């Protein structure tokens, strides 16, 4: 399963790479190259695309791990409420705090993705 997922992601990434330029001979004029962006090997558009891809992969991983962790915590809490119904109030308080603390880790990853999405990549020279 994991191998198929990795292969899918890599094929998606490779379709967005810029096409390989033909090797120009060294004595070719540099006039043609002046119209390219003054950036280095990677233009800002591809950097933006790579950043979005990495961000989405990270966010997916965070959401999956967050869901697993919260389900474990909730499962133990509900089992113990069933065992000891008079402790329901204290357990409820602890569960809500615990779930919110786990969820805040997923929120941090979302915030990093927002940064990657909203930053102006054209402001930076690469």
């Amino acid at each position, binding site marked *: 399963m994991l191998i198929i997922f990795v292969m899918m992601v890599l094929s998606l990434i490779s379709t967005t790479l810029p096409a390989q330029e033909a090797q120009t001979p060294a004595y070719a004029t540099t006039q043609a190259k002046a119209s390219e962006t003054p950036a280095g090997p990677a233009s800002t558009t591809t950097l933006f695309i790579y950043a979005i891809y990495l961000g989405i992969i990270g966010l997916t991983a965070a959401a999956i791990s967050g869901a697993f962790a919260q389900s474990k915590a909730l499962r133990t809490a509900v089992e113990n409420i069933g065992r000891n119904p008079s402790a329901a109030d204290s357990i409820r308080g602890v569960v809500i705090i615990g779930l919110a603390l786990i969820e805040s880790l997923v*929120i941090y990853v*979302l915030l990093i993705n927002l940064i990657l999405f909203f930053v102006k990549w054209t402001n930076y020279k690469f």
Partner: protein
Amino acid sequence: MEEHRLIIVGLVNKLLKWLFSLVGIGFDPHKDIIPSHIVMALLVTAIIIVFFKLAVKNLDLFPGKMQNALEMFYKFFQGLVDDMIGHEGRQFIPALGTLGTFIAVSNLIGLLPEMGSPTANINVTAGCAIFIFIYYHAQGVKRHGPWGYFKTFTGPNWGLSWLFLPIEIVSHISRLLSLTMRLFGNIFGEDMVIVIISTYLLSFIVPLPVMALAIFTSLLQAFIFVMLSTIYLAGAVAEEH
């Protein structure tokens, strides 16, 4: 995507620019004097003040409906503080209750048309977190004295203070950051989801379930903020046996 300019923010800024132009100071006509999150925060404060002033007008020994509801509201915070701090926590109920009310109302007000949440801006949530940070440190210093409060950071004995002190400092600063980021991320993320759903799908019907979820998470986030502040206060004010 561009910001939709709120009506109230436009009116307030026009009024201020006109007032300043009477004195002779000119402003750039395309920019705001007071940004939208501050106008919304002042609006939320005004709503809370007016509502509570009207609510405590006729207090009775046998409470009517509104007083009953407000007493339940007060008992909620009282129960919260009693669980964590004990009986001496009564003095902290005004600060925590006000902060909780402000955060809850300002989270919810973003769902109305032509209104934005002030807490969707990181400066407002950082302000709330900085307030709680200074408040619980000040309460700790008031309780233990400055040197005594510093000693609570150094751990059980002096031999290990080199280990405990950096850990405690980092954990306290991470508390500040985590309070800010949690509230900002939840409210701004929810706003962003509603905006994106409204842009790309039907504008009126489809955001409604997401808005219902947003009501729930707004109240939950306010509760979490107050609960965590109570825990930090309890940690700062605690008496060691």
